[in-house]
């Protein structure tokens, strides 16, 4: 059992919760390897994927996770653009609740929208990303991926590269990483940092961290959240922040590259790196993150609903 039924941010997860989720995720990874990739654990439960903001992989990941647990899942997508904020969410929730669902997975472009929804409903809610705030299941799958690869967490050095201010992934990851004793450095240009970053270790070029990091965590440049220009040019981004082949080859033995996806090819990571084969290609764990994501979401759904 998890300490809290809903997962709104990484702060609502205790260390025991995280251990329990990881232990179950190991079993669910095995289930996903079977010919029959389905267990009857959540038979008869109904889950709603309530996405007010477009998403492919997170939505699909939750959908596959629910289906492998034999739950019924309904996908509900809507755009907030034409409706007045707040009102539409509550109305939609009322409709969904009348259908007697057991759990809501929700994404919204406004920070805090999921927390507001959680207070309004009487079923558990999982935050699948709210604005620039949090994306807790992404942080769990990232931490899990690191743990599977390195077999430990404490003392690892991670550098988180890129668009920090707009990234809910960065905020969730940093919270979990630091609680596990992982050493975090943020690599970001000044204009992509929050006003107060005095608490964080900050560097401005990927070259400052590339050789010493165990994990290079490349963030997605969040063009969709940039209503003003945060960065002068892609060329300048490439020069200081992109992961190119030269930098990949300078990484220390055993180190890895992570990215929450989808990758803006040619911006955060070059085409050449994305398509690289052989040993350097094995450093890139983006596909493992996706595989582990399904197992983590199965574990979370299972632990909340069982």
């Amino acid at each position: 059992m998890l300490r809290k039924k809903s997962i709104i941010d990484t702060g609502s997860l205790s260390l025991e919760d995280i251990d329990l989720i990881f232990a179950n995720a190991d079993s669910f990874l095995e289930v996903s390897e079977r010919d029959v990739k389905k267990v009857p654990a959540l038979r008869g439960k109904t889950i709603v994927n309530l996405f007010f903001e477009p998403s492919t992989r997170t939505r699909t990941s939750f959908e596959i996770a629910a289906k492998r647990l034999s739950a019924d899942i309904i996908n509900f997508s809507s755009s907030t653009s034409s409706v007045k904020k707040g009102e539409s969410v509550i109305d939609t929730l009322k409709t969904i609740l009348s259908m007697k669902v057991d759990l809501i997975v929700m994404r919204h472009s406004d920070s805090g929208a999921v927390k507001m929804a959680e207070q309004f409903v009487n079923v558990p809610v999982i935050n699948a990303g709210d604005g620039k705030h949090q994306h807790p299941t992404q942080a769990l799958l990232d931490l899990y991926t690191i743990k599977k690869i390195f077999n430990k967490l404490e003392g690892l050095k991670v550098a988180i590269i890129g668009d920090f201010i707009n990234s809910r992934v960065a905020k969730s990851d940093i919270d979990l990483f630091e609680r596990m004793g992982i050493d975090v450095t943020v690599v970001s240009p000044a204009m992509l940092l929050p006003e107060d970053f005095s608490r964080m270790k900050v560097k401005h070029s990927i070259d400052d961290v590339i050789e010493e990091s165990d994990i290079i965590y490349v963030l997605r440049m969040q063009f969709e959240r940039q209503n003003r220009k945060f960065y002068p040019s892609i060329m300048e981004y490439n020069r200081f922040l992109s992961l190119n082949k030269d930098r990949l080859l300078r990484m220390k033995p055993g180190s890895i590259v992570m990215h929450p996806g989808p990758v803006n090819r040619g911006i955060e990571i070059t085409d050449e790196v994305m398509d690289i084969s052989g040993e350097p290609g094995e450093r890139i764990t983006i596909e493992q993150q996706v595989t582990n994501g399904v197992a983590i979401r199965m574990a979370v759904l299972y632990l909340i609903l069982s």
Partner: protein
Amino acid sequence: MAEKAYILNRDEIDRIIKRISHEILERNKGSENLVFIGLQKRGVPLAKRIAENIEKFEGTKIKTGKLDITFYRDDIGQNIKPIAQTTDIPFEIEDKNVILVDDVLYTGRTIRAAMDALIDFGRPKTIQLVVLIDRGHRELPIRADYVGKNLPTSRDESVDVRLQETDGEDSVVVIRKE
């Protein structure tokens, strides 16, 4: 104070396992096409021990796997701690005679769940059940094919099976809760 009664010691458990190993060979006319699957957690070492005996008797290699049935339980939401253990069946069970091994047979619900789980892995030729202790009180139409010891119990007693591999010693004890 809880009252304890010692039912089996190490030598007795050892003899039972040898006897069951012979029974399995007799009924299946040899070890061909046999695979062993132990239920987490104490069925796993029991399955291994039987398989090792048969390997010794027959001079062939016997395949063993482990099965966890947490995700197949029918008592979800009834305060059971949902920590799943490893399932590892590194072979095909299609058309095999699957020997399912568990420590205690009680209501039969675990075995129901185990059969559901097994069938998701393929279609065995037969499923046969080995239990070290059959304590009665079945709630489903399930019986064991090989029984170590029939042990009539009441529902307020608990049967505590301890094995070297999981608990550091071999013993079976019945504990009556006051």
